[in-house]
């Protein structure tokens, strides 16, 4: 039998117990004219073997990253996913449970989420983190809304957004804010690729918050200490965004530089790219603001006998209690992805993560040098982590397409997002690339250039 265990005899016995002749009688409440009256046109039931074969063919109609050289990043990074991660995620106890409303039978999820929160706090340098958001873009939008709750009197002040915020994050913030009447102001960049602090200072008065990303969209590391110093005397909420979470192992975390909120994507931590989802959003803040945070929080408590245990807590912030007054509408979040990140981080350990981060950085630097030697200049001079922008001197879209044809995803052509950068390519380098792979890219680019 397929997925439904009822035998015909069961069905008959149940109908009899209910006191109806057939199942149709059970939807007497549905007015006849609203009934479908035909079969859904979705084809016949298929065996597992047939569906598997079809899906395999469809999967193979995609060119996967395990069979390409991937220099694409821009918010999604092709890192190694340790096999331990899917092996543990696939355990039914984790996979097929839901939101741990009933704590006593959900301590597995709850303790893991508590660990996740702790890990995010440690990595971001903040004080409190929630149990996940959908993705980095949504986390950023929610961070802006949280800023609004933190400054309830500032009903109209603009949101300052660094020009180097990931465009998809920017777009999501715009969608979330559009109806609010709140303005979004762009803070442009210095020629070196980092956010222009003078322009930032000029826009401070009355602003609700600043949203800046580091490493930024162009791969440049923002100078958090300098940014925080620039806004020191302002009341604005400082939102730091991180799209390459691995950088947090190497770079000074925004939380060590007086950020108020840190949000971003945790996809780098054991989560496959999967055409963009499911990824992992995280959001961290300060203890003082915890009641203004969106999303689930797991807290430590004890049972009657004093045994430590964990529960969902502070749920008066949430929609199921506070409804329209909730801090967010989020319900189902990205729990399993948060678990993936937790297992990933536990597997790497602090030193392992740092070593991996350094390795990513060094490989990227090496590629930069190789490219420079081949005549390709970096577009920006600010230091980077594992991603950087290169000036091709030719239409980047065309170049990228030609290299894609050769099995090399050379990077993201920036023209689609920034027309003025249409000759630039955003290149990411991870531990999945070897020295030879770097050389292959350089050679291919050089060839195309000629």
């Amino acid at each position, binding site marked *: 039998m397929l997925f439904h265990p009822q035998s015909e005899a069961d069905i008959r016995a149940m109908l009899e117990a209910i006191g109806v002749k057939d*199942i149709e009688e059970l939807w007497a409440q549905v007015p006849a004219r609203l009934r479908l009256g035909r079969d859904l046109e979705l084809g016949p039931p298929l065996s597992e073997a047939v569906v598997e074969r079809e899906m395999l063919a469809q999967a193979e109609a995609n060119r996967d990253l395990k069979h390409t050289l991937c220099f694409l990043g821009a918010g999604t990074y092709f890192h190694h996913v340790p096999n331990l991660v899917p092996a543990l995620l696939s355990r039914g106890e984790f996979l097929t449970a839901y939101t741990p409303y009933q704590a006593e039978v959900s301590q597995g999820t709850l303790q893991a989420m508590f660990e996740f929160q702790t890990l995010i706090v440690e990595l971001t340098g903040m004080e409190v983190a929630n149990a996940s958001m959908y993705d980095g873009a949504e986390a950023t939008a929610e961070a802006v809304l949280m800023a609004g709750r933190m400054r309830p009197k500032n009903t109209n002040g603009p949101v300052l957004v660094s020009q180097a915020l990931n465009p998809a994050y920017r777009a999501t913030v715009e969608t979330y804010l559009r109806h609010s009447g709140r303005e979004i102001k762009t803070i442009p960049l210095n020629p070196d690729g980092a956010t222009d602090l003078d322009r930032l200072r000029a826009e401070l008065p009355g602003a609700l918050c600043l949203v800046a990303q580091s490493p930024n969209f162009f791969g440049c590391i923002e100078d958090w200490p300098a940014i925080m110093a620039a806004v020191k005397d302002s009341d604005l909420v400082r939102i730091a965004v991180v799209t390459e979470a691995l950088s947090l192992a190497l770079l000074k975390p925004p939380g060590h530089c007086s950020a108020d909120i840190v949000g971003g994507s945790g996809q780098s931590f054991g989560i496959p790219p999967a055409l963009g989802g499911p990824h992992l959003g995280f959001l961290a803040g300060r203890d003082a603001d915890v009641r203004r945070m969106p999303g689930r929080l797991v807290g430590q408590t004890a049972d009657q006998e004093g045994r430590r245990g964990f529960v969902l807590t502070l749920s008066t912030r949430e929609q199921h209690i506070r409804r329209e007054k909730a801090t967010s509408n989020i319900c189902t979040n990205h729990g399993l992805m948060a678990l993936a990140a937790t297992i990933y981080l536990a597997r790497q350990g602090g030193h392992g993560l740092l*070593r991996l981060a350094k390795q990513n950085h060094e490989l990227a630097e090496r590629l930069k040098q190789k490219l420079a030697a081949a005549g390709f200049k970096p577009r920006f001079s600010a230091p980077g982590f594992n991603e950087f922008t290169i000036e091709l001197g030719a239409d980047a879209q065309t170049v990228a397409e030609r290299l894609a044809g050769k099995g090399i995803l050379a990077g993201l052509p920036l023209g689609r997002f920034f027309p003025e950068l249409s000759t630039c390519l955003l290149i990411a380098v991870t531990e999945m690339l070897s020295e030879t792979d770097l050389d292959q890219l350089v050679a291919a680019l050089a060839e195309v250039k000629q």
Partner: protein
Amino acid sequence: MNPPGKRTGLIWDEPLLFELHPDQAPEPTLGARVPSPARSAQSAQPSTIPSALLRETPPRIPDLSEPEVLRHYSRLSSWNYGVDQGFYPLGSCTMKHNPRLNEAVAALPGFAFIHPEQPADQVQGALRLMHELARALAEISGMDAVSLQPAAGAHGELCGMLMIRAYHQARGDARRKVLIPDTAHGTNPASSALAGYEVVEVPTGPDGLLHPDTVAEFMDESVAGLMLTNPNTLGLFESYIAEVAEAVHKKGGLVYGDGANLNALMGIARPGDMGIDVIQFNLHKTFSTPHGGGGPGAGPVGVKKHLEPYLPVPIITERQGRYDYDWDRPQSIGKVGQYYGNFGVMVRAGAYIRRLGGQGLAEASRLAILNANYLRVKLRDHFHLPHPDACLHECVFSDKGLPSEVTTLDLAKRLMDYGFHPPTIYFPLVVHGALMVEPTESESKETLDQFIEAMVQISREARENPDLLQSAPQRTPVGRLDEVRAARKPILRWQP
């Protein structure tokens, strides 16, 4: 029914990750550590980054070996209850079976390891899958167009409400309010508020249904629309849905249908045929994708023609067998998430729909309804049922008639001792001390009978030995946890 807890179980005394190796050792030595993925020289300090921008110490995460991590989370998992373990009748959540085929296909490198910025011609299989899933959802719901972008049900609601807003705005019609029945799920008002609307609660009738007259009363030109769930959270079909929608439409409003309960309707009736203008699907409920301890889900949103221009960008298009992203949609509300939605979840839902076909989906709904009604009838003599005569996929009991010293919470906790995950409790709010049971089609009559027996026994215990309920659960790794204490002085992270 086996009496709880004759034997004690091996319950691991598993510490927190951070307590496993309490003193962080210095960098581990050669042999014991993970070799670098690529052979790279190990330089001490990144040369190009100013030290002011570097972390001062590595993150404090213990350095563990693979067996330690594996064992830690294997043990933690054994403290968890999933659908794989037993009956999980969490109402409104459709905890149905999660076929393992879904997991296998979602893990295929051609689906799991493709980059969202790859050129469209390198991901034709993925785009086709999305396109076909959107079409299937349209067929199931009777809607005209579907975007797969929202990441969960609530996200779909927000997206839908933003489209309603955009629709009115495009016609220069600034409306402020959204009507929501008192039976609604919390995400409905929260999503409306997030979309900038004022929420007006509309009472349902004593029959648990929304009445056209009531709606008409509340309806005027300041109202952007009505948001309702059908079948509603009492498990009842909104019989007046067509008339209700008419009342809303008459005043220029739109109707948002919360599709979380679609598992009751597949192949039976379609929201799009009832006057609903926009709906979200919860793929993690109706379409068998796993709930993951709280996500990821996926909340595609379906609309009627007049709302199509407002769908989030991009839309997946098909032209002569070639699939592409369409970003050029000037009236779109924009993006609601970073990329195109939770693709991995879509793969699973797509496999499920192909596997069952139209017939199989209809059978799922039929059997979900049968199972719920069986529970309704078998339990209505033992627990108060505000609407005893009918339900679709779930039914809601109240605490009426329980001895006063016993709460719905006690009952739920006691169910754990019988080996069941408790139903949803205290929701919907319109039912006092609600106990909301949704068995889904995946459960056998045997399982339902065991649950019924446990419930009946508990109802007896509630009267004869209430302490058994109040001191429950006894068989779980921890006893009843103090939620008040957790909230009063929140401990939200581990500290050394």
